[in-house]
């Protein structure tokens, strides 16, 4: 296995183990999990909330959620960073939009599969990284930017329409077509 993949798997396994220990009430593991992952999650909060004070509040609430929900993480279904990022992102979106949280704990989705991933699956998971980069590059640059703005900055359709100066329905059509092409490319 190439060294960078091996290193990635080690990091993934470590985060998985930490989440597992946290679910048993291990506070030392919780502190280590914080030190390993908070900087990424804080970056995500800052990007969506655009305000340091709000992001600090969000990060605290996110780690309180992680402590209480760590038993809902299912190894081998979601990657541990994806689980943490999704939890953080959904929390920040709930805050910025004043919406009430629904179904953001992923436990339902993760009940679907239970088997541990094979090493091949794990390498596949690592390869997904470059795959989404490749697929994003195949979109027209503005449309790829729109997908990024929606995911990373929490833009709504209206925000995107304003930003690209197009009618709302046009923006929706653009983005839906881009998502269709992304799905096709990612499923290859």
């Amino acid at each position, binding site marked *: 296995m190439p060294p960078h993949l091996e290193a990635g798997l080690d990091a993934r396994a470590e985060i998985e183990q930490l989440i597992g220990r946290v679910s*048993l*009430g*291990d*506070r030392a593991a919780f502190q280590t999990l*914080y*030190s390993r992952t*908070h*900087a*990424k999650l*804080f*970056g*995500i909060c*800052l*990007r969506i909330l655009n305000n340091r004070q709000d992001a*600090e509040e969000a*990060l*605290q609430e996110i*780690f*309180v959620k992680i402590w209480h929900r760590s038993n809902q993480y299912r190894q081998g*279904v*979601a*990657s541990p*960073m*994806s689980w943490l*990022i*999704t939890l953080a*992102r*959904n929390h920040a*979106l709930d805050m910025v939009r004043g*919406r009430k949280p*629904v*179904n953001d704990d*992923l436990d*339902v*989705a*993760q009940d*679907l599969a239970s088997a541990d991933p094979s090493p091949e699956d794990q390498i596949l*998971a690592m390869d*997904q*990284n470059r*795959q*989404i980069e490749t697929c*994003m590059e195949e979109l027209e640059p503005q449309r790829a930017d729109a*997908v990024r703005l*929606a*995911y*990373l900055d929490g833009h*709504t*359709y209206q925000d995107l329409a304003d930003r690209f100066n*197009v009618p709302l329905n*046009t923006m929706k*059509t*653009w*983005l*839906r077509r881009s*998502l*269709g092409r*992304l*799905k096709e490319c*990612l499923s290859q």
Partner: protein
Amino acid sequence: MTTDDDAPRTDEIIVAEYVLGLLEEDEREALTERLNQEPHLRALETFWTERLSLLADEVPEVEAPHLYDRISDRLFADARSIGWWARLTSALGVWQATAMSAVAALVIVGFVTVLFVNMQDRTMGDWVATLAAEDSDVAFVASIDLDDQILSISGQSGAVLTDQDYELWIIEPDSAPVSLGVVPVNAQTNLRLDDANLAGVREGSILAITIEPLGGAPEGIPTGPVVAAGPLTIQAS
């Protein structure tokens, strides 16, 4: 761009919009309903969640180490009292918790003076406790000999642990648990109690067993689940 309007809005795309957070509130609620019913939608949700989260690779990390203490305070500041009691109450079951309160109330009303005097005289019988919990097959029995200041505890059932330890705690009502050390489940252990330990022992005090890392909870605060607990009662001599 109106020619683009004929693009079909398939489930694949609606779920992607859901994961991105682009759906209107009513659409979002409707899809949440469908996600609970339809496994193929949940698979799509996982697909998009996993793939799109990789976009976060480009988000710069921002260190905020000082926030950990605040999080820790939020989660654990109360753990030495309220959180602990909540866990105990749940371990013991509501019925036992209610019975315990009743016993405690009775003691306060009628017997507190007598108890105090007799504690001083140390002529009373031993204190005993049966430690058990719902959803756990771990059980211990314990007794305290006041004259010799010895607590004897022996396991009645429960798996022998290899990479963890059972730890014994004594808890006075509304106080932090105090560790009495790790105890094996397959042998009797005699522990000498110091005066400080003994001073707090009264009707309503609880002995509890948690599962902890080898050697016991590192910071002297229980971290693992309560697998057995029970109130101390007086056994007349």
